[in-house]
């Protein structure tokens, strides 16, 4: 009964979405207040029904209802309760429902927090989001019904993939989707403004906090995914440039460009059409990501060709959204008035250069991700494009972007003063350069690339610090937007320090060990104390004990496991990590090779935590920026950028 209720709720939600995607547009075009007023209750009603559907599916998982196909294939009665709930989004169908759930959450948020928006604008925004919901709800109902019954019911389920049985599964997908789907808000704002012909600073000011919020979720989602892969896959890597990762990273890159471009549009009224284009591209890449992950093309283009229903549906939807919005853009963007002029050395030009760099980097990632798929689809052979490609293209493109980001906050809007910037940064530059040259020596091995990586990191940190000092001295006060920007930039610095030091100084070793054996790596010694059998709720494991020593002192006792899950019978490596701010000691069991001996892999990962700490700083910076007071008072004042120019010129926060 409950699954049918969920199914029915989805159908009702689709009906509401159809209303929400049509009537408000009509109302806004013909100035019929009654139809315009439909948008808000429709969005809220849709949220209620999608939430009911989501709740029904979660309940089916929680209560082990194996008469539902989705539950029978992705859960098991012995699966612990939190993972049963998380299994709701562990399947193709369930993750689509999560997608729609997030979309309706954003719609609810827009309908609640945008009371200050003009009614017609809000109607169009919710209308666009309604149309997106129509696409995804019908995709789910026609090709991927999460409530499909299995008759007769299975006695027990086939269990959730053991890799997914981890706290990461509980938090990572909702965060990531919240970010992915959140760009639909920026997209809807852009489309609504294009239809309306009202692309101005006020529009940018409305749109900014939403875009930043989506970016924050996406940043946290990607960081969580990276952290999860690091400790769960047993290989000690934190980013694999795998197509699924790239699918989430590309919207992040464009989203980052969008945030910065919106800043220019709000402060200076410039880059309007550029900003709109970025909003369209960011959301299109979110959809492309959904297509890549959900259509099966990544597993095999042939699997896609034999069961094309799902893939073709998303591809069609993607073409419709991208084509439609670009057509609208081409038609309307020419009518957009050009914004304020600016000199070659100005904050505008710096931000423009940065967004171009981000876009080019994103295009390179896109090419590397799609090229093998195209070749394969055309029958031109099978290739793989691995991390070396991405690293050798991505890093050189991001290096100038980071150099610019260190200077940007110190350059004035419209017309920067070169000598002034130079004077302010000269000491920073000298200190940063000296530190970048010296620090690698502390690790006992100097390399040019290490020094260069650190130079970038210290530069952006130094730039942020200098900007902070300049601002404090000028006594103009620090807005939370400005603090957020500096914190996010510092986060990049911390991230780059982590990446550079891990890449330069990580070490690993595969060893065959018998109980009592000791092996050394990176100044630590590892004593293997044997393996014993333990059993978990739904798995049996061999748990090793490895004592980590340094100078004869015990540093940590680690207990890596090799698990075999009872239902799917797959072995799973569960690494053990002694975490620290300056290094992680990472140990994973390989396999038993006879005589109580095991193969063991040990890693030392210097400063790896800084990678995720940096991401958290970026995300928290985003939170600060989005919560700036002016977004809340802006609606009342309705001032536009030209009036605020004078005060913003020097103090503006990016």
């Amino acid at each position, binding site marked *: 009964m409950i699954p049918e209720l969920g199914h029915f709720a989805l159908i009702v939600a689709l009906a509401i979405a159809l209303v929400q995607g049509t009537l408000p547009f009509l109302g806004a075009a013909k100035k019929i207040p009654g139809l315009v007023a439909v948008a808000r209750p429709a969005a809220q009603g849709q949220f209620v029904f999608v939430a009911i559907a989501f709740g029904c599916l979660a309940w089916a998982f929680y209560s082990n209802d194996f008469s539902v196909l989705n539950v029978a294939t992705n859960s098991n009665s012995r699966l612990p309760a939190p993972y049963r709930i998380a299994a709701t989004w562990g399947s193709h169908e369930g993750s689509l429902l999560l997608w729609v759930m997030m979309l309706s959450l954003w719609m609810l948020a827009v309908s609640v927090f945008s009371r200050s928006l003009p009614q017609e604008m809000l109607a169009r925004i919710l209308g666009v989001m309604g149309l997106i919901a129509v696409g995804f709800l019908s995709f789910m109902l026609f090709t991927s019904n999460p409530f499909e019954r299995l008759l007769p019911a299975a006695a027990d389920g086939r269990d959730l993939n053991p890799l997914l049985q981890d706290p990461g599964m509980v938090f990572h997908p909702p965060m990531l989707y919240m970010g992915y789907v959140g760009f639909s808000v920026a997209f809807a704002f852009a489309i609504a403004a294009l239809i309306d012909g009202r692309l101005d600073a006020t529009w940018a000011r409305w749109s900014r906090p939403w875009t930043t919020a989506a970016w924050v979720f996406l940043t946290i989602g990607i960081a969580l995914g990276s952290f999860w892969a690091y400790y769960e896959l047993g290989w000690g890597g934190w980013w694999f440039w795998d197509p699924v990762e790239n699918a989430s990273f590309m919207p992040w890159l464009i989203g980052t460009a969008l945030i910065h471009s919106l800043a220019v549009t709000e402060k200076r009224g410039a880059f309007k059409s550029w900003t709109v284009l970025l909003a369209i591209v960011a959301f299109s890449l979110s959809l492309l990501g959904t297509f890549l992950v959900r259509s099966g093309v990544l597993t095999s283009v042939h699997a896609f060709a034999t069961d094309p229903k799902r893939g073709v549906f998303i591809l069609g939807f993607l073409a419709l959204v991208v084509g439609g919005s670009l057509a609208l853009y081409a038609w309307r963007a020419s009518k957009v008035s050009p914004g304020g002029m600016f000199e070659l050395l100005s904050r505008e030009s710096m931000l423009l250069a940065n967004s*171009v760099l981000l876009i080019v980097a994103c295009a390179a990632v896109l090419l590397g991700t799609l090229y093998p798929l195209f070749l394969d689809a055309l029958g031109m052979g*099978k*290739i793989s*494009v691995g991390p*070396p*490609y991405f690293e050798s*293209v991505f890093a050189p493109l991001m290096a100038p972007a980071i150099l610019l980001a260190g200077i940007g906050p110190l350059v004035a809007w419209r017309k920067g003063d070169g000598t002034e910037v130079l004077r302010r940064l000269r000491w920073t530059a000298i200190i940063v350069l000296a530190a970048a040259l010296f620090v690698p020596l502390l690790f006992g091995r100097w390399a040019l690339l290490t020094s260069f990586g650190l130079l970038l990191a210290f530069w952006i940190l130094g730039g942020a610090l200098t900007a902070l000092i300049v601002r404090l001295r000028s006594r103009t006060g620090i807005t939370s937007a400005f603090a957020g920007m500096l914190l996010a930039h510092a986060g990049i610095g911390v991230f780059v320090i982590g990446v550079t030091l891990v890449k330069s100084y990580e070490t690993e070793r*595969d060893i*065959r060990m018998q109980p009592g054996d000791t092996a050394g790596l990176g100044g630590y010694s590892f004593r293997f104390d044997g393996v014993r059998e333990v059993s978990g709720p739904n798995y049996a494991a061999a748990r090793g004990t490895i004592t980590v020593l340094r100078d004869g002192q015990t540093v940590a006792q680690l207990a890596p496991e090799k698990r075999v899950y009872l239902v799917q019978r797959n*072995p799973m490596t569960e690494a053990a990590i002694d975490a620290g701010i300056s290094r992680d000691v990472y140990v994973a069991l390989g396999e038993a090779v006879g005589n109580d001996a095991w193969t063991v892999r040990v890693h030392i990962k210097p400063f790896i935590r800084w990678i995720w700490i940096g991401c958290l700083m970026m995300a928290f910076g985003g939170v600060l920026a989005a919560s700036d007071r002016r977004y809340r008072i802006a609606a009342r004042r309705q001032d536009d950028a030209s009036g605020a120019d004078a005060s913003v010129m020097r103090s503006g926060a990016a």
Partner: protein
Amino acid sequence: MIAIAAGVTLIAVAAALVLNAFQGNVVFFFSPSQVAAKEAPLDRTFRVGGMVEKGSLKRRADGLTVEFIVTDTARSIPVVYTGILPDLFKEGKGVVAQGKLAPDGAFHASEVLAKHDENYMPPEAAHALSKAEAEKTAKSVRPGATR
């Protein structure tokens, strides 16, 4: 003007980076049959994939180096790898190995990939198997056919 010049330069640099990276880092895939037919390069890293032949996994005395045979059912190739095998590596299951061909005809793998799910076959491995299968069927249909 300067902005346009900078833009063009940037795109040129990016294109050069991409082309250069593609040239150096794209890894081609060959099936054991293709390797047997000497289609695979001798001095370059490539990927080979298929099924791990049952009973072929042997461990050398150091405990870390393993040898196994990868087959596409038509032809097979011996693979040598030093290190810890992935969790889902199993005899009779699909596998993809990346490495170089040694003069003795063995494939020295630097990386062995077996993916996350028991039902999931690495696409390249599945491709190699189905291709060999198709060729066999074609031959059995035309027993007298010569190539």
